[in-house]
């Protein structure tokens, strides 16, 4: 079985994003970029499934600028076997990403596609579900535990009320939540080895996918800023404040 793992290059989660003064977006010039944290979890999960002898090959895919190669090299250094960069300088929306991934899945015929549940840049939380719809396959979103068993996969999902388990017939789509695993760091020898692993470069047009955006962003603004309030001296003062609020 092959596992396909889509990985996105996004602003590093430690960076505080700054809105551009002209309202056109967030300033990404000279900002540290990394693999979307949920996608690191996806790569890790794919590696664990392979290490358990349940998969033969892991293919990492990224849709993005030439620099997304770095993200793919990170996935290769962690343990993916080969990578595909679908190169474009345009912002590609989840629907178009899902269409490109569908085309790649048609070619590669993976048993599982493991994505992040959400990219921390656009916070869309939709690509995996869309891919599942386009492929006509089941989805185990917000995965906390994934167990491959023959031609089906059990996914324990993090839901608002707790946890839920579903059983899916493969091929299936899984999206990762934070508790699925703790991603490994790539070791130096593996980083060196990753440089020699195959990385194909394609264009959205190669898959016949029109990436024209459906949504136009007309403005990007700072959220209302909260002012820091006061610090109180001691517990007695805090309790007095709480009583003033009328909640106790």
């Amino acid at each position, binding site marked *: 079985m092959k596992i396909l793992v889509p990985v996105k290059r996004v602003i590093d989660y430690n960076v505080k994003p700054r809105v551009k003064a002209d309202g056109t977006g*967030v300033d990404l010039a000279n900002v540290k970029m990394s693999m979307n944290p949920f996608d690191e979890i996806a790569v890790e999960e794919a590696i664990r499934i392979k290490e358990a002898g349940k998969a033969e090959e892991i293919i990492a895919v990224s849709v993005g600028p030439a620099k997304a190669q770095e993200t793919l090299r990170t996935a290769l250094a962690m343990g993916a076997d080969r990578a595909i960069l679908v190169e474009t300088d345009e912002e590609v929306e989840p629907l178009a990403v899902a269409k490109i991934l569908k085309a790649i899945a048609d070619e590669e015929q993976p048993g599982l596609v493991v994505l992040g549940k959400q990219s921390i840049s656009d916070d869309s939380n939709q690509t995996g579900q869309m891919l599942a719809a386009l492929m006509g396959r089941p*989805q185990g979103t917000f995965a906390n535990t994934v167990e491959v068993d023959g031609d089906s996969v059990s996914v324990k999902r993090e839901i608002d009320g707790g946890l839920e388990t579903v059983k899916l017939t493969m091929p299936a789509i899984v999206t990762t939540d934070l508790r699925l695993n703790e991603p490994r760091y790539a070791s130096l020898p593996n980083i060196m080895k990753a440089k020699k692993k195959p990385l194909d470069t394609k264009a959205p047009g190669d898959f016949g996918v029109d990436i024209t955006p459906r949504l136009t962003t007309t403005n990007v603004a700072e959220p209302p800023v909260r002012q820091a309030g006061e610090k109180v001296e001691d517990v007695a003062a805090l309790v007095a404040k709480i009583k003033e*609020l009328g909640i106790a």
Partner: protein
Amino acid sequence: MNTLVLVEHDNASVNDATLAVVTAAAKLGDVTALVAGSNCGGAADAAAKIAGVSKVLKADDAAYGEGLAENVAPLVAGLMADYDALLAPATTSGKNIAPRVAAMLDVMQISDILSVEGPKAFTRPIYAGNAIATVESSDAKLVITVRGTAFEKAATEGGSASVEDASGAGDAGISTFVSREVADGGDRPELTAAKVIVSGGRALKDSETFEQVINPLADKLGAAIGASRAAVDAGYVPNDYQVGQTGKIVAPEVYIAIGISGAIQHLAGMKDSKVIIAINKDEDAPIFQVADIGLVADLFNAVPEMTGAL
């Protein structure tokens, strides 16, 4: 515009998250509520009473009972022939189903809207709420998820919608529901509906300590309990306690953050709370930059003292 609201429910009653969605949908046009479930007559009747709902579609089928996206999405996509917009709550259930419908309709979903700015224009948070984007859709139909804290809740009484049966293809045959582990919160209010939330972070050490320190204070205040990702990852509390960018979004009257540093991912989930109170032993903790009332103290002394004095 004709809108379809995907009702979140437990077959017997309607979940609160739906009420904000009805308010958002009413800003766009006429509201039909879809109750897809199994033996869901109770939920359909409850939906019919929501103020602002003009019609209820009830799709009652064993295949819809557990809300499996593979079964529910084709039903919704089929019904969308008669509607211009689908609105679902930005809950784990809505986020699971709505994008699947969007792709079936060849539409880009607009996730987690904060406001309606025009018939096809909305604001939504990006980058953990550090930026608010205004987006306009060029799609023929709209698929939207709605942030519950951003819209008033529609009244649960006052409506008198008709209930009609609807049906779809039923079981897609590619997924099955196995089990659900849902903690019984007892008398404690639900996190996203609570007026007061007491949240604990990594500083709480372990699950026993968390319970010993946080629960008595929450009991005194009739509060729900939340947590940072660090506290959830470390197993102090279950995953559904997580507040933040990738957890639950809350906006209570009062949010009390205890031993939480205030990482941007945490702030994303609670900075719209009316009053924020923070207790942290580090006077430079970023949480104090958003807190209305701060106390620099060791929580293991301060919180029990506070609980005692309330």
